[in-house]
């Protein structure tokens, strides 16, 4: 094989947990592990559907079933489509992004515990594991976009190109918040196995507290009728994933710009400001999450 060892390479200094050399150094380490990330992502994807006939096609089944349930059962049986135009697309848009968020966090939260054999035996930047969960969820998300395109064809209506700009802040919130939460929950789950169940329940709550299957102004009107209504409204809007869902509906739900969508027009400039402030807060959150992760990840191996 490689024969004589050629020259001395760089060295690394291993220090106690929590005395890491800063977020930029950690980021560089993470970048150097991109081959590992690719390998782990393809391992997850290949492993998950190995031996099944549809393979990655299975990832389309869930949104298709959801599309059926929400357009027929909720839309027609329950009559939601009478107050919201193109109800199926409305729900599907929010649902696709919600699946990305909840899949990455749910799997991310257990990413350290399920890979304990790896963690106990090999050294690599530990952030790779929660990041893998996010990347895998992103692949599924991109495949599921097919269902959305299918729905557009079905309704033969397409979103306004200009509105697609709203996807930018949405993505800039989804990544730092979902990845940041995976970082924190994954290390917490090593210490307290309750975490994964709390996360599961929290995400169910998050689903209904985000305007996915109902328009935001339904909640807004109700909250206004409560005592301290303004306070509850603001609290509701603090949910970053709620904002993401609203932004992607603005971008991808065709009736938003027409009279049919007028019941849902709230996207004035305060919303854009709120969205960008939320982007800023999300990246600060990711920074804090990474610091917590580094501090705890050095010691978790003992608890695995």
């Amino acid at each position, binding site marked *: 094989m490689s024969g004589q060892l050629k020259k001395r390479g760089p060295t690394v200094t*291993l*220090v*106690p947990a929590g005395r890491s050399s800063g977020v930029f150094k950690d980021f560089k380490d993470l970048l150097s592990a991109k*081959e590992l990330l690719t390998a782990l992502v393809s391992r997850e994807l290949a492993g998950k559907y190995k031996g099944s006939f549809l393979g990655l096609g299975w990832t389309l089944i869930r949104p298709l079933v959801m599309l059926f349930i929400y357009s027929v059962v909720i839309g027609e049986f329950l009559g939601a489509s009478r107050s919201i135009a193109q109800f199926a697309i409305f729900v599907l848009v929010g649902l696709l992004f919600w699946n990305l968020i909840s899949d990455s966090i749910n799997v991310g939260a257990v990413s350290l515990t399920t890979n304990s054999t790896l963690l106990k035996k090999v050294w690599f930047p530990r952030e790779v594991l929660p990041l893998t969960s996010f990347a895998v969820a992103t692949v599924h998300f991109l495949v599921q976009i097919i269902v959305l395109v299918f729905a557009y064809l079905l309704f033969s209506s397409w979103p306004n190109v200009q509105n697609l700009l709203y996807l930018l802040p949405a993505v800039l919130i989804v990544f730092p918040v979902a990845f940041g939460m995976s970082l924190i929950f994954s290390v917490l789950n090593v210490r307290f196995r309750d975490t994964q169940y709390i996360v599961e329940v929290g995400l169910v709550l998050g689903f209904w507290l985000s305007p996915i299957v109902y328009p935001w102004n339904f909640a807004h009107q109700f909250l206004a009728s409560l005592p301290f209504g303004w306070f509850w409204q603001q609290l509701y809007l603090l949910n970053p994933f709620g904002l993401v869902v609203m932004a992607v509906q603005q971008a991808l739900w065709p009736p938003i710009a027409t009279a049919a969508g007028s019941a849902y027009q709230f996207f004035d400039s305060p919303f854009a400001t709120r969205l960008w402030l939320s982007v800023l807060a999300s990246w600060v959150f990711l920074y804090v999450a990474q610091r917590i992760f580094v501090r705890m990840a050095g010691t978790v191996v003992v608890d695995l």
Partner: protein
Amino acid sequence: MSTVVSIENVSREFRKYYQRTFKEFLTDRHAKNFNKVFMALENITFQVKDGSTLGLLGRNGSGKSTLLKIISGVLTPSSGQVIRPVSTAALLELGAGFQPEMTGLENILLNSSILGRSRKDTELVIDDIIDFSGISEFIDTPVKFYSSGMYARLGFAIAIHTDPELLLVDEILAVGDGPFQKKCLDRIKEMQNEGRSIILVTHDIGTIQNFCDAAVVLDKGKVIAQGDTKEAIDAYHALP
């Protein structure tokens, strides 16, 4: 000769008390032994010279494996620091991270990237790896059908082909059958001749005599002797 690994005042403690759930954490926080710790390693300091092979000798529970894990980076020290080459391969647990559903070949690529080797570099040695493992016939079989011996052979073959500056080895003699063991030992000799540095954990005196230029003896987490192998072996025998 310069130093390739420097271990400076490394200590490692473990909590004696262990709780798993948040409830236990809340209720048992004031328990008597909650904050008691056990010192697995205390103020370990030694260097490994470039291109040499160092043996770590000690009884069960002396802290050898903990120290090796700290050098590899899997565990962090509680205090002190370790300076080592980035390019380090650890033969701690062979086949860690094998994906049962994937074939041997796929696992070679995956495992090499876990060990920090680029895809391009791996492809250059992939034939050597398959050759060395001696299981070329089954390389396209999912590893879940492998016997434990085949598993270890493949793991060893991958780890040893990562072109490391430093090799960490824990109890190599446990791998495979006689002929394969001999092959492993020959390969380690070869790596020594190539100028790679090795840290070798064992409680077998024979291994120390055959392979090592120097040795460190650990007992109850402390260094009780270091220097040439003969002195170290005497110190080991003198342990009560």
